[in-house]
């Protein structure tokens, strides 16, 4: 399974870093519905460092790559944290 995990991680990085440039720019289903019903998008409560997937240092690919790694890392920490406790008790 190790090779599969590595392969999938590389694939994900490629998707987020490269192919996301091909992503459709048309508004998504929610945005379109909100616009049709004149619902204004609210103000964001937190200021995200890379809002709308634009990173201040390198554009979209860097945002995609760092986000992919952030999710990978966070999920591993959560998973290992929970799985380990079982072994300890």
């Amino acid at each position, binding site marked *: 399974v*190790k090779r599969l995990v590595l392969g999938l991680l590389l694939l994900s990085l490629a998707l987020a870093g490269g*192919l996301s440039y091909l*992503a459709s720019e048309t508004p998504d289903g929610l*945005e379109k*519905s909100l616009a049709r019903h004149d619902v204004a998008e609210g*103000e964001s409560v*937190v200021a*995200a460092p890379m809002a709308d997937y634009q990173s201040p240092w390198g554009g979209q690919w860097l945002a995609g790559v760092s986000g992919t790694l952030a999710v990978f890392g966070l*999920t591993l920490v959560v998973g290992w944290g929970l799985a380990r406790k079982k072994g300890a008790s």
Partner: protein
Amino acid sequence: VHLPDGILSPPVWIAGDLLAAGAVGVCAARVKDRLTESRVPLMGVMGAFVFAAQMINFPVPGGTSGHLLGGVLLVVLLGPAAASLVMFCVLLVQALLFQDGGITVLGPNLINMGLLATLGGWAIVRLLAGRSNGWRRYLAIFVACWVTVVAGALLAGFEIWLSGHAPLGPVLLTMGGVHALIGIGEGLITVATVRFLVAARPELLEGVS
């Protein structure tokens, strides 16, 4: 379907946050009971994959677009509890780093785009396919994708109506109509991905609880 901050009224998003927090707690307890360490890398990489896939909007007829949600994909490979936690991680990173989905509406977003698929979608797959691994399973996966994407969109529309922003009928009609098409995309991508992964590693689906 990522709802931004400020769209839902406080009672609606607080209720959603509480409900989602409870569900995440139950899932965490279940994962703690059952998850073996050897499955953790798969959890991590599927989270990364779902995040990456959600960045890629595919065009939908009618001047709009949609992207994979991935909840059913996660649940088929990881089981409902682990899949729900992975979805939570994905949405948390999207809200905190990318302002994709508001932080106050994290709970409602997790319910609409995550839990409906990882819990409800799982029930649909089980109900339609049992433990079959053949074409019935893939058909069930497709149905689960479509139903949960549309249901999530309708639920989001319902929450917008509850918050007093739009009349119920029309908002359900637009949300449901657009996402009936997006749901087909979700189903096709999910079935193709599961088929590809199972072909590469047939043992992957074993030990999913």
